[in-house]
């Protein structure tokens, strides 16, 4: 599904020029999106400069805001890691929000009881594992249907997402309902039993887990046989089968690992920030991250800055929208605009790369175009 666009011959350019070019290639659509959003703000009679300044200031340039951004980054990065694993294997796991909420419901529901029943470090480790396992388990139906019957995982994982969102709500309002107060939520894990802070800050330990997980995913992708198998599977399932790869097993494990990382994201968010889960809580990170990870080309080095920027918009933009008297949902529009411009620049790049190639080869055959893979 991605086009081979690396037409620059690396040997001819100094490395810093490639870095600058690479940076601009990814930063440009974000800039266009912000400009378009700025025009919209002007139409609404708001000052775009002060809007963006407040966003950056309160999401990045104040110590408290920066900490908030980094705290938000932990679940976002873990979720991105999950999407990277699935996309690499050509699996379009669109059910991330269901995996997230199911894991959150179980971690939140069992959390208060578990930290009371055992040493709290053991409880935290076990709860993270529970999140990991539940998120992974929520992919079994789509992955088995895909592996054994070739059923389109986009639709089945979407269905499991809705099932998960409703089941999570049922669990929170039913078996896991708190016995204190009237708010429909789980029991609260006492503050002192949440994930420990990094020294000298109020940033919880989750960001470390996220970065380690991303590093492991990157290592797996680029340095292990399993990662190579997944990439072959993603590039061409038929070739993978011919190469003797156990396609069924790899689909199920890759899908499971993807869901598990997303479940871990939920565990980290619940154990690091909230300590409980409220009914009908759905941060809905999944859709946006799905698009961001895809447009970042599944490259960890590009995903991290993009997701960081998204976190700044979420944290700082919240403050900026409040100050400008706009609904918080304006940020959704801003992110949507940026996504559109990312899609547009990707298209322009593919076009110009193809044109260069045609000019060079002189032939009229677009031989470099990637094969459309149809899974039968």
């Amino acid at each position, binding site marked *: *599904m991605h086009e081979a666009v690396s037409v620059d011959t690396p040997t001819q350019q100094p490395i810093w020029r490639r870095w600058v070019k690479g940076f601009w290639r990814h930063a440009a659509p974000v800039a266009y999106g912000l400009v378009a959003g700025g025009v919209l703000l002007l139409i*609404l009679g708001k000052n775009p400069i002060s809007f963006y300044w407040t966003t950056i200031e309160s999401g990045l340039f104040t110590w408290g805001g920066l900490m908030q951004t980094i705290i938000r980054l932990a679940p976002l990065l873990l979720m991105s890691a999950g999407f990277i694993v699935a996309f690499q294997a050509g699996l*379009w796991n*669109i059910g991330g929000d269901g995996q997230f909420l199911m894991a959150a419901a179980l971690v939140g529901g069992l959390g208060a009881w578990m930290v009371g029943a055992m040493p709290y470090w053991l409880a935290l480790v076990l709860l993270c594992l529970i999140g990991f396992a539940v998120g992974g388990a929520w992919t079994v*139906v789509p992955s088995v*249907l895909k592996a*054994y*019957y*070739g*059923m*389109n995982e*986009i*639709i*089945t994982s*979407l*269905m*499991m997402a*809705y*099932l998960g969102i*409703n*089941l999570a*709500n*049922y669990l929170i*309002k*039913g078996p896991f309902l708190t016995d204190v107060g009237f708010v429909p939520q789980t029991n609260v894990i006492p503050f002192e039993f949440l994930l420990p802070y990094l020294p000298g800050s109020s940033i919880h330990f989750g960001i470390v887990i996220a970065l380690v997980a991303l590093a492991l995913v990157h290592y797996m992708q680029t340095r292990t046989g399993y990662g190579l198998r997944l990439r072959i599977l993603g590039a061409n399932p038929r070739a993978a089968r011919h190469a003797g790869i156990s396609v069924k097993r790899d689909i199920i494990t890759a899908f499971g690992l993807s869901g598990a990382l997303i479940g871990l994201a939920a565990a980290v968010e619940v154990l690091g920030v909230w300590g409980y889960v409220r009914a009908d809580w759905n941060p809905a990170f999944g*859709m*946006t991250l*799905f*698009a961001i990870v*895809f*447009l970042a080309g599944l490259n960890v080095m590009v995903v991290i800055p993009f997701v960081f920027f998204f976190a700044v918009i979420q944290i700082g933009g919240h403050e900026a929208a409040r100050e400008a008297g*706009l*609904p918080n*949902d*304006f*940020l*959704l*529009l*801003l*992110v*949507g*605009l940026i*996504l*559109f411009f990312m*899609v*547009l620049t*990707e*298209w322009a790049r593919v076009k110009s790369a193809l044109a260069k190639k045609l000019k060079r080869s002189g032939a009229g*055959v*677009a031989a470099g*175009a990637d*094969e*459309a893979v*149809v899974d*039968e």
Partner: protein
Amino acid sequence: MSSDFVAAVITGAILAGMPLLFAALGETVSEQAGVLNIGLEGMMLFGAYGGFVVANWSGSSWLGFVGALVAGMAVSLLMVVFCVYMGRDQIVVGIAILLSIEGLTSLLHNVQYGQSYPRLDAVPTIPIPGLSKIPVIGPSIFDQPLIFYIGIALIFVVGWVLNKTNLGLNIRAAGWKPVALDNAGVDVLRIRTIAVLTTGALAGLGGGYMGIVTAGIFVPFMTGGMGFIAIVVAMLARGRPVWVLIGSLLFGIALSIATALQLVGVQVSTDLINMLPFVVVILALALFARQSYLPAALALPFERGKR
């Protein structure tokens, strides 16, 4: 089973099921043409907004439905440009559409109606002579606004177009084997454009139904996942519009039965009942999954000369 309960279930199922029916019918057309419209929810939401604004401004529910249709088509135009002509990834563009429209409608709602909360008058209904006099089910099924009857008629129109006309054949070829269609001298991109615009129009009408008939108001995020449920309904229908009707009504019943049960004094969990249709669908898939349910070229962009 009191008659109140039955009537409440039927009324609720129709109110919740009709928007699904329009949207799922639309999704069926574009899925058959090979375009997976993840942005369907966005089209519905913009249809609901456009329909409400026009109906509120003109005082006519008819103009409102026209507005909803145009609004839905306008959003689907994005899908045409980015996915059909530029060949970009359909899921990613669908997500971009969804987020943008959610943000845009919430923003516009805040600017326009942040202070006043206008409400539309109830849409006039047309009772079918005779049938609407049947006790219990008569008034809840056969006394509906005209758009309801149009929706039912559209099922047969879409079924006829897909199965009995050249256009329908071309649409299905564009989804199953676009290369063959291209070889036959038909412009695949044009066929897909027609299909996606039809989808936008129908999804817009579905949203309009929610805004004008079901709710009578517009609130941000009011479609609440209906578009995604419509995608599931369309997939289960496998391109057969009559199954779209059955699927939409089943989901409609599931979405309304909890309220109806509460009406007669039975307390059940809404969440649990909302899960039921998905559980049934997943069990059905797991038990009867034999071959692919979806067009072979679904979600794959078409580019001439590309092998």
